[in-house]
C-alpha cells in the first residue's frame, strides 16, 4: 500500500491536492482537498448588489464570465428586473464563446499532456505524421514540411537544455500509448490552439471590452449599446467581426479538435472503463431562447441517477443541501435561516508545512453539496447526458457519431474518456449554434429594438425593502448557482454553489465520497511515484478550484427560495 500525494495538481485553475491509497496497481481510496480560501461572500456583505457581478467575476479568471452571469441573474431575480431581448442574446453569445474557448484550452493546454508524450514526438516521421493528419481531417496545416518544421522546433527547444514547463514530467511513462506521429500531430495542434484561443476570444473584447474579466455586465441588462447606425455601438461591423470569429471557431473545432479527440481516444479505449464516479448527473440548463419567465432552454435541465439514461428527472433546487463535516468550517449545530445565516471558516488542518492531511477529520476548504442527499457530477458530460436522455436530436446525433467512430456503446460515456468526448461534442454543438444569436442581434437591430437594459429597476429606490434571488447558469464546468439576499438596498447575504464544489468536494456527513473521490477508485496506477493516471481522471473533470471554495450557509433549505412576487 502506498500513500500517494499529488499537490499541487497542476494544469488546473487553483489549488487542488489529491491524496490516495494505492495497492495492487489501483487506487483503493482517494481524498480531494482544496487548499485555498478567500472569503468573497463575506466581502460582499453590505455592498451594492449592482456591484456584485464584478466581485464574483473575480472568483475565477479562467471561466471569467460565469460568476458575473449568475450574479446579475440572481440580483435581477431578487428585484424583478427583466433584461430586454438584446441583453439575453448578448449574454448567450458571451456564455457560448466562453464555453467554446474554455473547452479547447482544456483539451490542448490542460489535459493533452496526460495523453500525449511530447518527448516521443521527437521520434516521429513527418511524412507519416502528415499521412495520419490527412487521414483524419482536411485541415490545411498537414503537410510533411509543416510537421517537419514543428519537429525541428521541438528538437531545438529540447536541445537548448531548458525544458521550462515540460521539465520533470512523466515522459516515457508506460501509460502513454500514442505512436510518435500522433504525438507530433498533437504537439503541433497544442501550439496552434495557443494562437487560436487568443484570436477567437477577441469576440469577448467585442462584447465585453476585454478578456479576461469582461466589463459589460449590468444588473438588468448589458452595458454594450446596440445600434446599426452608430460607430460607438455594436453595429453591423461588430456582427461581421463576430461571424468571422465564429466561422474560424467552427473550422478549428470540426477539423482539429474533434478529429484529435477521436484519434487520441482510439488509442485509449480502456479509459472508457475507468473513472466513472458517482453515476449521478445534474444540470440546471442554459441558453434561454425567449424572454419568458420560464424560457425554453437550448440545453435542458434535469437529473439522471445511477447512469439511467432512460429517466431524466426534473430538477428541483429545493433538494440541494450542503455538508461541512469534512470541511474547514464551523459545524452548523442547527439549520440557520439565511437572514441570520453565517458560516465561519475555521482552519483545523495541519499547520504548514505538512506532509499529510487528517482525512478522517476535516480536510478541505470545499464543502459537500448534495442533491436529495446524493453526490452529483456536473459539467459537459452531465449536460450531454441529460440532453441525450431528453431527446435533444443534435446531441443524440453527435454522441452517436462519436460512439460509432470509437466502436463503443453509450455505457462508455460514464468514464474519464466520456468526459473528454462530451466536452468536445458540446463544443461542436455550440459552434454550430452560436451564429443564431449573432443573427438574432442583427434582426433585433433591423426591427429597431435597441434596448439593452431594464432601466426602470436600476435605481435602488425601485426595489423591495427586502428580497431574495437565485441565479442559475451552466458554466463550462457545470451547474452554477448564486443566491442573494438584499435588504435596504445592500447585500445582506450572498452564497455560491459552484461546479467544482459539486465535483471536487470531500466526503459528506454520511461519508459518501464526492465525484472526484469516487471516480478515482480503481484507477490504475503503474508507478505510485508517477501518478499520471490519477491526473487523467482528475483533469477529465476540468478542475477549477478557485471557483469551488465558498462560504455558504449550512443546511440551507432556503436555497430554493426564489422571489416570485
Amino acid at each position, binding site marked *: 500500500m502506498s500513500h500517494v*500525494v499529488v499537490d499541487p495538481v497542476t494544469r488546473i485553475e487553483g489549488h487542488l491536492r489529491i491524496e490516495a491509497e494505492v495497492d495492487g496497481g489501483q487506487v483503493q481510496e482517494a481524498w480531494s482537498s482544496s487548499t485555498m480560501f478567500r472569503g468573497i461572500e463575506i466581502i460582499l456583505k453590505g455592498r451594492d448588489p449592482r*456591484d456584485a457581478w464584478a466581485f464574483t467575476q473575480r472568483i475565477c479568471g479562467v471561466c471569467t464570465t460565469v460568476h458575473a452571469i449568475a450574479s446579475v441573474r440572481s440580483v435581477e431575480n431578487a428585484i424583478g428586473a427583466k433584461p430586454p431581448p438584446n441583453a439575453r442574446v448578448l449574454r448567450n453569445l458571451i456564455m457560448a464563446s466562453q464555453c467554446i474557448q474554455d473547452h479547447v484550452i482544456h483539451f490542448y493546454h490542460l489535459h493533452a499532456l496526460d495523453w500525449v508524450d511530447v518527448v516521443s514526438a521527437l521520434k516521429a516521421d513527418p511524412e507519416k505524421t502528415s499521412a495520419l493528419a490527412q487521414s483524419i481531417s482536411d485541415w490545411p496545416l498537414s503537410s510533411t514540411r509543416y510537421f517537419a518544421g514543428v519537429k525541428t522546433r521541438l528538437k531545438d527547444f529540447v536541445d537548448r537544455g531548458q525544458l521550462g514547463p515540460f521539465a520533470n514530467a512523466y515522459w516515457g511513462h508506460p501509460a502513454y500509448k500514442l505512436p510518435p506521429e500522433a504525438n507530433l500531430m498533437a504537439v503541433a495542434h497544442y501550439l496552434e490552439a495557443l494562437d487560436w484561443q487568443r484570436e477567437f476570444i477577441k469576440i469577448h473584447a467585442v462584447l465585453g471590452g476585454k478578456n479576461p474579466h469582461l466589463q459589460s455586465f449590468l444588473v438588468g441588462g448589458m452595458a454594450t449599446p446596440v445600434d446599426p447606425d452608430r460607430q460607438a455601438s455594436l453595429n453591423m461591423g461588430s456582427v461581421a467581426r463576430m461571424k468571422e470569429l465564429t466561422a474560424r471557431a467552427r473550422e478549428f473545432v470540426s477539423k482539429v479538435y474533434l478529429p484529435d479527440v477521436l484519434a487520441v481516444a482510439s488509442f485509449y479505449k480502456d479509459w472508457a472503463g475507468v473513472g466513472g464516479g458517482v453515476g449521478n448527473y445534474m444540470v440546471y440548463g442554459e441558453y434561454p431562447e425567449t424572454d419568458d419567465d420560464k424560457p425554453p432552454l437550448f440545453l435542458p435541465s434535469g437529473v439522471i441517477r445511477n447512469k439511467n439514461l432512460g429517466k431524466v428527472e426534473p430538477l428541483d433546487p429545493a433538494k440541494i443541501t450542503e455538508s461541512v463535516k469534512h470541511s474547514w468550517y464551523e459545524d452548523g449545530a442547527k439549520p440557520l435561516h439565511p437572514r441570520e445565516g453565517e458560516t465561519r471558516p475555521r482552519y483545523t488542518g495541519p499547520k504548514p508545512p505538512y506532509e499529510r492531511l487528517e482525512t478522517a477529520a476535516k480536510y478541505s476548504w470545499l464543502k459537500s453539496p448534495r442533491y436529495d442527499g446524493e453526490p452529483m457530477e456536473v459539467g459537459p458530460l452531465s449536460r450531454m447526458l441529460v440532453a441525450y436522455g431528453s431527446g435533444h436530436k443534435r446531441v443524440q446525433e453527435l454522441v452517436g457519431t462519436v460512439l460509432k467512430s470509437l466502436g463503443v456503446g453509450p455505457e462508455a460515456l460514464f468514464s474519464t474518456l466520456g468526459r473528454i468526448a462530451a466536452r468536445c461534442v458540446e463544443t461542436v454543438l455550440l459552434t454550430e449554434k452560436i451564429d443564431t444569436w449573432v443573427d438574432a442581434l442583427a434582426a433585433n437591430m433591423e426591427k429597431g429594438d435597441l434596448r439593452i437594459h431594464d432601466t426602470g429597476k436600476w435605481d435602488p429606490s425601485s426595489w423591495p425593502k427586502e428580497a431574495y434571488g437565485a441565479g442559475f447558469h451552466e458554466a463550462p464546468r457545470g451547474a452554477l448557482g448564486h443566491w442573494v439576499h438584499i435588504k435596504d438596498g445592500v447585500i445582506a447575504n450572498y452564497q455560491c454553489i459552484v461546479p467544482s464544489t459539486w465535483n471536487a468536494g470531500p466526503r459528506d456527513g454520511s461519508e459518501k465520497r464526492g465525484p472526484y473521490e469516487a471516480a478515482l477508485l480503481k484507477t490504475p496506477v503503474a508507478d505510485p511515484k508517477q501518478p499520471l493516471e490519477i491526473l487523467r481522471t482528475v483533469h477529465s473533470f476540468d478542475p477549477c478550484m478557485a471557483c469551488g471554495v465558498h462560504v455558504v450557509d449550512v443546511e440551507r433549505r432556503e436555497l430554493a427560495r426564489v422571489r416570485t412576487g
Partner: protein
Amino acid sequence: MGSREGWLAEELRRRGISRRELLYFCAGVAGAFGLPASAAAQIANALTRAKKPILVWLEFQDCAGNTESFLRSSAPSVAEVVLDLLSVDYHETIMAAAGFQAEDALKGVVKNSPGQFIAIVEGSIPTGADGGYCTIGGRSALDIARDVCGKAAATIAVGTCATYGGLPAAAPNPTGALGVADAVPGVKNLINLSACPANAANLTSLLVYYLTYKRWPPLDGFRRPLFAYGKTIHDNCERRAHFDAGQYVEVWGDDAHRSGACLYKMGCKGPVTYQNCPTIGWNDGTNWPIGCGHPCIGCAEPDFWDKMTPFYKHLPATPGFGAASSVDTVGAWLTVGTAAAFAGHGVLKRIQHARRKPEDGSAPPGDTGATRPGGQP
C-alpha cells in the same frame, strides 16, 4: 547546452520572420515606452542576443486571470518568440509535471540559480490561520513567497491582488491577505503591474524592456512602470471630448450611450485611475471597457474594491464642471474634488504617491536592491 548567442535570430529565420518584421514589432515596443524610433534597432539587437532567463510564476490567492491574460499576449507573429525568450520553469497552470516533481522544479531554480531568475507572483498572500488559507505542496503561500522572492533577481507582482492585496484584501479582509510588498517587505527589485487583470501587453513590454536594457523601467510611487501607469485613463480617453463638451450618458442605452458620450455620470473612475488602457486597448487592441460602453472601475488603483465602490456612483461633482471649463481646469477640479471626497480613506495620499515620480529624489518604498529599479540609465 552550448552558447545561446544568436539563437533568437535563428528562430526568427526559421519561422520566416524577417528582420524587417522584428524591427516593426520593436518599433511598437519603443512606441509603448515613448522612446524614439531609433531605439527599435537597439531593442532588436538586444533581443536577438538574449539568453533565456529563468522565470517562475507563483500563484497564491488568485483567480488565474493574469495567467489567462498572459496567454492572450498578442504582439503579432513575434508574440510566440517573445514567450520563448524565457524559460518558464514553474507555472502551475501550464506545466506538465505535478506534485513533488513540480515542486522539485521550483526548488531547483531557487537552489541552483539564486539571484538569477525572475519571479512573477499572481494572487494575494494570506497571513491568517497560520498559513492555512493557502498551501501548495503542504507549504504556506507566505513561506513560499519569502523563499522564492527572497532569492529572485527581481519580482513582478502581476495583477491587483499580488500588488496591493486586491479582492481578498477588500474589507473586511477575512484571511489577512496582503500584496507582495507588504507580505515580503524588502524584497529586491519589486515591480508592480496592477490592474484586474494586468494587461498582457504591459507584462510583455516590461519583460522586453528588461531583456533589452538589463534594467527595469522608471516607476511611479507605487513601483508601477511609468510607461503603463504614467497617465490617467481620463487623460487619453477617446470620449474625453464629450466630457469637455458636457455630453454624458444618463441612461443605459440612451442616444448618448449609443453615440459614445462620456460615462462620468454612470460612475466612470477614469479620472483617478492611472493606466494605459485607452492607448493600447485589450486583446490586441480590439477594444477596452469604456469602448464597449461600461465605465472604468479603477482596477489598477490600490484598494479599488473599497475605494472605487459603489462602481456606479459618480465621482464628486466640482464647481465649474461642464462645457465652459477648459480641459485642464476640469481635470484639476475633478482630481481635487475627488481627492477631498476620498481623503478620509487615504486616497488623496495615494494619488499624490502615484503622481510622484522617482526623479523627485524619493526612493520608492521597499527599494533596497543594489540595482535600483526606476533609476536612470
